């Protein structure tokens, strides 16, 4: 599931469920470093319409920890996604 090797200067990003449907991928690499607060903007540029259709209802993890980047006062907007990090887009879950 996770990419085998992340090229230098990049982080990996994983897409699940609706995020995977929308991008047509389960993962890819994006240039690092990237301010967490700019992540959705960056994805919207690559996949026009993704922010409203998918990302608005998604959570984000960096290295398996949830970060909060939703809204102007979110605590993790200035967190910097580093080379080699694993970011994941987490749509609303549906187990059971």
């Amino acid at each position, binding site marked *: *599931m996770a990419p085998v090797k992340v090229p230098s200067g990049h982080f990996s990003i*994983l897409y*699940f*469920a*609706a995020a995977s*449907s*929308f991008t047509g991928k*389960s993962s890819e690499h994006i240039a690092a470093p990237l301010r967490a607060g700019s992540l959705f903007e960056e994805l919207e540029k690559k996949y026009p319409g993704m922010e409203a*259709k*998918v990302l*608005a*209802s*998604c*959570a984000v*993890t960096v290295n*398996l920890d*949830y970060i909060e980047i*939703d*809204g102007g006062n979110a605590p993790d907007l200035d967190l910097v996604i580093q080379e080699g990090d694993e970011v*994941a887009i*987490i*749509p*609303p*879950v*549906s*187990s*059971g």
Partner: protein
Amino acid sequence: MATTESSTYTPDIPSSPITRTNPESTVHVELTPNSLDHVAATSFVRSPSAGATVLFIGTTRDSFNDLPVSSLAYTSYAPLAMTTLYSIATTILSKHGATKIAIVHKLGECPIGEESIVIAVSAPHRQAAWRAGEEALEETKAKAEIWKLERFVGGEGVWRANRDGVMGEKVEEEKDQGKGTEMNLEDNAKETS
């Protein structure tokens, strides 16, 4: 939220079960591509100090809002889902004073009518076992990073969200709900298998 998926979608799943059991053998969580074994889960929680064992088996339904479902598949962010399931299990064990707990979820294709989740809990007395079992299920449905793709008869696949009231309708209050990490009992009550 729901987004359609082409009928050729194949879930990306591990080829063998991923398991985690604590050293005391009181907590077991598992994500597996294999058929679920509720007898094994029940055996795991059996204990001479427990007078009650509660077993929940969730099976996949053949319809959603009266629309016929032809097949289902589950996918997961397995490393994160395992951490989440383990945390749910250990928290519930201590909160309810339960003896042992097992949570096992299916990944990949899950034919209609087959088991998608098994939760077994033992406790000294029945009240704690019932409550722990129910809470384990609700917490898992609210938090575990697992997604269900429902394929409708003659149509595309739809990624379900447990907190949606209806298929394809976006939930607006999610910004106040911690983005998929909070439980919504009312919504989930409708979805429980």
